[in-house]
């Protein structure tokens, strides 16, 4: 968080809810009075390709893009994707990684190998890595779609504002649009928050 700007990079695969997670972070930062910019390259994203969403906030944000080596937080919704974006993280940065592994067709047909242990490779780079199986927590809570909220809960103690601010922003959204899912998402957030310290 050099120069007063917080840079968060959310990465994963099309369809995982990367943009929704980034949107939630952007809205929360906005509610704290920050200038915010959020960008991603979408378009073919729904077709199983790489998705990365950049969220930048601070007193005044110009460029919406995070330069390589400038991310404070890397949120990886898939293990190999977290590794792919490692060069974007500062040496002092934090990587929060879902241990889920999704192999694309080019790996299935044997043209490429999936990294044996992406988490170990991340750790070897000397950054702070927190990795856990968000899918397992979501399934325990009874809904695989909770991964998004769990990942946000996991990074909530690594933000320049209190975790409860992010939680309230998420819960408020559900209260307004999907009230039946409010309680379960609040629980998912807490479970993620706990996992984020592993």
């Amino acid at each position, binding site marked *: 968080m050099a120069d007063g700007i917080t840079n968060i990079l959310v990465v994963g*695969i*099309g369809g995982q809810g990367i943009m929704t997670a980034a*949107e939630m972070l*952007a*809205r929360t930062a*906005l509610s704290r009075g920050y*200038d*915010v*910019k*959020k*960008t*991603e*390259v*979408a*378009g*073919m*994203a*729904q*077709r*199983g*390709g*790489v998705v990365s969403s950049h969220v930048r906030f601070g007193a005044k*944000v*110009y*460029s*919406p*893009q995070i*330069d*390589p*080596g400038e991310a404070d937080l890397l949120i990886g919704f898939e293990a*190999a*994707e977290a*590794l*792919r974006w*490692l*060069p974007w993280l500062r040496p002092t940065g934090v990587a929060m990684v879902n241990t889920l592994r999704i*192999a*694309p*067709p*080019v*790996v*299935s*047909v*044997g*043209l*490429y*190998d*999936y*990294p044996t242990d992406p988490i170990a*490779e991340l750790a070897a*780079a000397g950054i702070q890595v927190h990795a856990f199986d968000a899918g397992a927590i979501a399934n325990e809570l009874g809904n*695989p779609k909770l991964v998004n909220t769990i990942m946000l809960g996991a990074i909530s103690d690594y933000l320049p504002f209190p975790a409860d601010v992010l939680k309230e922003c998420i819960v408020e959204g559900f209260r307004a649009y999907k009230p039946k899912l409010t309680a379960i998402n609040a629980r998912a957030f807490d479970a993620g928050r706990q996992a984020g310290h592993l």
Partner: protein
Amino acid sequence: MNAVVHAKAASRHLLSGNEAVARAAWEAGVRVAAAYPGTPATEILEYIALYPDIYSEWSVNEKVAVEVAIGASLAGSRALAAMKHVGMNVASDAFMTQSLAGVVGGLVIVVADDVGLSSSQNEQDSRYWGRFGHLPILEPADSQETYAMVKQAFDLSEKYEAPVIVRMTTRVCHVKAMVEFTGERIERPAAGFQKNPQRWVMTPANAKPRLPLMHERDRTLRTVAEASDLNETFTGSDRRIGFITSGPAFMHVREAFPNAPVLKLGFSCPAPLDKIRAFASTVDTLVVVEETEPLLETEIRASGVAVQGKNLLPRFGELAPNVLRPAIKPLLGEPYAVPRRTPVDVFPRPPTMCASCPHLGPYFALSHIRNLNIIGDIGCYTLGAGHPWNALDTCICMGASLSMAHGMDKGRGASDEKKHIVAVIGDSTFLHMGMQGLLNMIYNRGNVTVLLLDNRSVGMTGGQENPGTGEDLHGLPAPRVDFAKLAEALGVRPERIRMVDPYELPTMVKLVREETKMEEPSVIITNRPCSLTDRFEHFRPYAVIDDQCTGCGNCIDLGCPAIFVSRRETVTAKSGKSKELVFAHIDANACTGCHMCVETCAPEAIVQPPAPSRVIRIQPHG
């Protein structure tokens, strides 16, 4: 309902550039808006559709969209057409002449350049069209500017009777940032069409007197640009380098060189050369940072001002801070070492087709038939060029498949003598610009087998409607074109028009084999909807019985992303040859139960597990 639609003036919102265009159009009193979907511009019309005061439509292509907007303008309504950069090529025939005739109601063309080439077939700088067609160009750098400039563009267009281009890029369209609204809708009733053949009938005799008027308008617009507050100077403390920039490149310059003076050109065409000259005299070295071609740079140099630009910077791609710093720091005598980072070696993850995608069947068929030249088109089915199908040989632009295939048939060489020519095109692309190719092929007695993959949506851009889907932009029922009747009307013999369920793989393969052997054009039409749209029906997922899987790998050849390799084994056959077995696993979360893979499995190892029985817990009373 979207909260932004009813938001009052002075409220603040986190908006993408595309959402900002819609709000601005509504406030500006736009009455008609038209577009054809294309990344990164697609959402502009989708957001405009939320405003009930604006008539909005998906037109069948960009030329039609611009012509619809021109008609509305001549009727006295403010009108907007939106498109991606390649859409401008299609639309250019209309606006190149309308620029000469001029407009009545404000006419704004919003074009989105895919700088960085993330979702297109090429990278183009649409600012050329402003020079070519004598149209003024406004270039916003973020959502707030987009909002303000779209409104100004309508005022400019009406005042100077010129269509105005608002040039966006991916990094404006899809970036969300704060926008503060300054107004609400101002109704501008249409004045009505004033007949004036000398003005609106562009025969040579009528067009000729318009030429000097258009050039006079250029000179006037240059003086307007000179005085415009959209061309803003930011003074800086370090005057060694001054930057001239436009669009989102401005943000990158401010990020990388916060202390440098900047002249930001929001009204960039015609370029305000006096203002540029004055700015140049205040700095030691002048550098132009523009995405992507050196248009301003060339014009500034031609006006006698010493300037640098593309000698330092790339002529393609985004000029992000990490591109600017290493290129420009050495000019300051500050060698810039790119920070060393451990390179990471991770497999590529190219976009692929979806589980139960109706294109999987046709590509399974095409990848199993030899001796085909497969001429492709623009859409999700372009992905057929990738693994595991490798069954698409060309792709250039909307609708090119049929006409190129015809040309390849007529121009075939000795090595292609026994090849069959196949054209693959989707429903929306066929209606956009493909029909003419089919008509041409029939008229000129060509021989191509056409695969018309009708998935009832514009799939790649997110499942938009078109005349083949039965619904309009607003999701309301609309007349649905009958593709078989259309093909017949264009001259294809009814016997050669074949409807097929793309999930029926054996039929699919048989049909393609049969029709490619015919000595006349055929059209094979598939009939399953895109699996990402509401028209798609989900069924219970399938599973692989592990000990019945023989490792043949046939299901993997389908390319369905719900099917994974569970393990590989190398076995030695009796002949002594070693063979790799590939065992499959189906991800129950991704599988939608389309059953295509079942047809590839001889040992019947792919089954639909019985539905879990619903246990209703009886609550004891009390």
